[in-house]
């Protein structure tokens, strides 16, 4: 199926490329000015158009991606400091503050919560699987 042109197709593609660039390179020190230059004629317009589509400025979006990736690392048991630097933050206090602002919990509280949840799943996996499915597979004998 070939691509059909639609209004502002080339602008959309450039904005989407910028967003995907952030998605891929969030862990590196990103120069958003350079991305704006690549994507658009003026930084002001880039930020405005980006925000109209993604409801966040490029900078806010970058923070959001980093916090989300950190959350996933914490989910898998990564220590807080390691998660912080792995996703591209350069300061532990600012990471903790941003993480708490986005998720409502500090990174260490979140880590502890996830460890606890994992332990409970490991102990009793059937608790998390609806009875109808388990029953139809014969795991639960009535």
């Amino acid at each position, binding site marked *: *199926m070939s*691509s*059909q042109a*639609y209004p*502002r*197709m080339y602008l*959309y*593609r450039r*904005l*989407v*490329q910028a*967003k*995907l660039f952030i998605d891929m390179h969030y862990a590196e020190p990103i120069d958003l000015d350079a991305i704006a230059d690549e994507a658009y004629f003026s930084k002001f317009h880039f930020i405005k158009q980006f925000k109209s*589509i*993604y*409801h966040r400025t490029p900078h806010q979006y970058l923070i959001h991606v980093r916090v989300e990736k950190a959350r996933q690392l914490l989910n898998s048991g990564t220590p807080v400091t390691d998660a912080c630097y792995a996703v591209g933050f350069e300061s532990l206090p600012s990471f903790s503050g941003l993480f708490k602002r986005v998720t409502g919990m500090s990174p260490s509280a979140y880590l502890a919560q996830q460890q606890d949840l994992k332990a409970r*799943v490991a102990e009793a*996996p059937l608790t*998390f*699987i*609806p009875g109808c*499915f388990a029953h139809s*597979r014969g795991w639960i004998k009535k």
Partner: protein
Amino acid sequence: MITRITHAVAYVLDQERAFDFYVNKLGFTVVTDAPMGDEGRWLTVAPQGMPDFELILTPVTRSMFKETSEALKDLVRKGTFGVAVLTCDDIFATYEELKAKGVEFTKAPTKEFYGTEAIFKDDSGNWFSLAQLK
């Protein structure tokens, strides 16, 4: 009385590939991913705006579906199942991003009376309507 639908099912041919498709390409979040031994995984995902909903990515296995399993796999591959209508705020941005990630569209965004709609397939063959409603 019945108040909500909280879970729905999509039959998938390979849970690992489906995981990559739904999580990495569509951007769904993983709600539960628990091992079930021979049966595969209890793997459920949800779009980011619906954390209380679960789409169960059910593997078509011989142990679960017995004699029906081959026929079911064939039906899935042929695109028999339209699983859901998905909505987004900006269909062109979503379309471009999904295309850039390798999602196969069978219909490009097209104006309909209810909004603008595109159709894509998952890695198993299930299809979805993607719409930006008026």
